[in-house]
């Protein structure tokens, strides 16, 4: 059984981005880029399924600029067997990425695609569900537990108020939530090994996909600043502020 794991190169989660003064976007020149944290969880989960003997091959995919190769190498250092880069300098929106991935699942015929639930840059939370729609596969988003068998997969999902378990017929789409697993640290020998793994390169045209953006960003601005309030001396002062000044209790 093959598993496909799409991974996105994003601004590292520790970086606090700055809005550009011309309001065209955020400044990502010279900031640290990393694999989207949810995608790292997706790679880890796929690799664990392989280590349990339930999966034969884990293929990492990334769509975007040439530097996404680094993200793919990281995925391969975690344990993905090979990588596919769909290279373009065009701004990729989730629908376009879902279409590229759909073309790749037609090529590769995986039984399972595991994606991060959301990228921490555009915060869209769309690609997995869109891919499921395009492929007409069942989906289980926000997974906190995955139990795979030969023809189906049981997924426990994080929903508002608690957890829910679904059984999906394979092939299927899963998106990961934070508590699915803790990704391993990649070791130097595995980083070296990853450099020798196969990495194929496509262009969106090779896959017959039009990736032109559908949504136009008119401007990007700073959020309204919240100014710091006051420090209160003790609990009595806090109670006084809440009751008599802010009047919220």
């Amino acid at each position, binding site marked *: 059984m093959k598993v496909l794991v799409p991974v996105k190169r994003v601004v590292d989660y520790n970086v606090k981005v700055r809005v550009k003064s011309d309001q065209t976007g955020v400044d990502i020149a010279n900031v640290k880029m990393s694999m989207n944290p949810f995608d790292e969880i997706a790679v880890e989960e796929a690799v664990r399924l392989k280590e349990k003997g339930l999966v034969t091959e884990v293929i990492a995919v990334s769509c975007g600029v040439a530097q996404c190769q680094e993200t793919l190498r990281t995925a391969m250092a975690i344990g993905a067997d090979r990588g596919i880069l769909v290279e373009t300098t065009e701004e990729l929106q989730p629908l376009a990425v879902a279409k590229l991935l759909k073309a790749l699942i037609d090529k590769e015929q995986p039984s399972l695609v595991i994606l991060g639930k959301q990228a921490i840059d555009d*915060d869209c939370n769309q690609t997995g569900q869109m891919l499921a729609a395009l492929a007409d596969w069942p989906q289980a988003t926000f997974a906190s537990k995955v139990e795979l068998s030969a023809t189906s997969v049981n997924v426990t999902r994080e*929903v508002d108020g608690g957890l829910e*378990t*679904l059984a999906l017929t394979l092939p299927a789409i899963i998106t990961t939530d934070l508590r699915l697993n803790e990704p391993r640290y990649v070791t130097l020998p595995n980083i070296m090994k990853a450099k020798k793994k196969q990495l194929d390169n496509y262009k969106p045209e090779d896959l017959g996909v039009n990736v032109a953006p559908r*949504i136009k960003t008119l401007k*990007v601005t700073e959020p309204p600043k919240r100014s710091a309030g006051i420090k209160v001396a003790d609990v009595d002062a806090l109670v006084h502020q*809440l009751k008599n000044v802010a009047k919220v209790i």
Partner: protein
Amino acid sequence: MTTLVIAEHDNDSIKPSTLNTITAALACGGGLHVLVAGHQAEGAAKAAASIVGVSKVLHADSIALEHALAENIASQVVAIANNYTHILFPSTAGGKNVSPRVAAKLDVAQISDITKVESPDTFERPIYAGNAIATVQSSDAIKVITVRTTGFDAAAITGGSASIESITATADSGKSKYMGSEIAKNDRPELTAAKIIVSGGRALGSAEKFSEVITPLADKLGAAMGASRAAVDAGYAPNDWQVGQTGKIVAPQLYVACGISGAIQHLAGMKDSKVIVAINKDPEAPIFSVADFGLEADLFQAVPELVSKL
């Protein structure tokens, strides 16, 4: 021009997130229909009909819609989508699950998590954990949107008198099956709808201490309980209590952060709260930079004292 809002409901009533979504829908202009898809959800359909601003309620009833499986709900929405210019979902776990599936089936882009409607095709949405606000314009014929509920006031639940129309329910996809759920039952308000939230962080030190210290304050204030990612990762609080960029986005009247340092991902989830109180013994904690009232103190003493003085 008509907008369709996909209601979140528990069969008998409409969930509060739907009310904020309706306000966003009204800002898009035109007529407003609400879809109540479920099994034996007549109560919810009636409740939807009385919401101010709703002109028609579409009610689809089928056992296939009982557990809101994404495959079935999406095909229900797609079946009627061409009657609408806008299709809005609340940005809840349920809405986020289904909405992109609808968008992709219609071959349109989705606009996630809008916080403002500038015009029928232009919207504001936060990106990068709320550190930037993007104004985006969609050129698609049908705009599929999820609505950040904290960005819009709740519509009034009584006063409307919409008609209720039964529509044909779609068939079960047969590809996914609901096996069960574990939903914590308690009398507290829902985290995303609560007027007051008391949240705890890693400083609590254990699940026992979390419960021992935070619960009495939440009880006293009639508050929902939340947690930072660090506290959830450490197992002090359940996963669905996590407030932050990738957890719950909340904006209560009062948010009390106890022992939470204030990572940007946490601030992204609560900085639109009306009044923020931070109790932390570290004077340098970033949470103080957004707090209206900061109390530099040991939470194990300050919180019980606060409970006794309220």
